């Protein structure tokens, strides 16, 4: 039985739904947060994810960061040593999609060894009629960066767990690879 812990950052432009996604994942069955409050700085909570076909689990320490540049210095400090990245954009907002490479670069720069399991999330699928970023375009960019791609609606509570479960599995895989590496050295 292995219990891993990863600092998981939720990053992306302001108002894409980072806090909403983190909050529905935290409470699973609880409701979509109705009051829109701008995240200032960083909020943290912990959620344990079991890894299928094992007795292992990964505790995700979720950091919901503000996407506002004025908080960036504060946020950057909190991002040190992060173990997983949930990169979020809004499918109705192309600018937020274009910002993803910036967020990804910043997050990777803070990760130990520059290596960081990450997923791309296109949020607000309930507003599909106003979509400006095509699924295929997002998926292709994600693949080019080595990320898995998911679409969610935090509002309709659709698919909100999958990105986090995928991150937990990726972190667990990375751990098992490291164990094999260390064993091969001794």
């Amino acid at each position, binding site marked *: *039985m*292995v*219990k*891993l*812990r*990863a*600092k998981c950052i939720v990053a992306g432009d302001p108002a894409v739904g980072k806090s909403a996604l983190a909050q529905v994942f935290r409470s699973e069955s609880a409701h979509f947060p109705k009051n829109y409050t701008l995240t200032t700085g960083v909020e943290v909570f912990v959620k344990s994810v079991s890894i299928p076909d094992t007795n292992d689990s*990964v505790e995700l*320490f979720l950091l919901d960061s503000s996407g506002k540049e004025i908080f960036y210095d504060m946020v950057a400090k909190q991002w*040190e*040593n992060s*173990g997983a990245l949930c990169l979020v954009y809004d499918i109705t907002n192309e600018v937020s999609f274009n910002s993803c490479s910036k967020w990804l670069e910043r997050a990777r720069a803070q*990760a*130990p*060894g520059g*290596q960081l399991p990450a997923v791309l999330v296109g949020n607000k699928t309930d507003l599909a009629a106003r979509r400006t970023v095509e699924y295929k375009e997002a998926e292709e960019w994600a693949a080019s960066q080595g990320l898995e791609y998911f679409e969610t609606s935090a509002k309709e509570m659709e698919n909100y767990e999958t990105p986090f479960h995928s991150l937990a599995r990726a*972190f667990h895989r*990375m*751990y098992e690879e*490291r*164990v094999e590496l*260390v064993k091969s*050295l*001794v």
Partner: protein
Amino acid sequence: MGRRDVGAGAQLLLAASGDERFPPEGILDGNTETFWMTTGMFPQEFVISFPDLVQINNVKIHCFNVCGLSIETSLAKDPVDFELLCEKELLRSEDQLQVQEFEQREASARHLRFVIHSGFDHFVSVHKVSVEGEAAND
């Protein structure tokens, strides 16, 4: 009085371990093949406690992917009131263990706390710690 290994009788305390395959006891068994593996996030720490006060001349650690490391000492009966003894950024090593020695003069301790502040990877391992010195009541 010659230098000797004062590790005999020392105990390992307070290491958080998330993987029972690699428990912290691997640090003190004198064998680099057994190791303690951290299971995510920094800082990480472990404490070595001696049965009595010891005078430490040298501390040597075998580890992998450790970056920022500090060693602290406590003279108290219980592992509290630690004071910084030394601090170092280790060199990265790709395909063999890191080996780092810390020469000390006149450092007394009943407990040694090792704090790993950062790593070259998400996970680091500690394979062996040896402490040379004299038991203070020799």
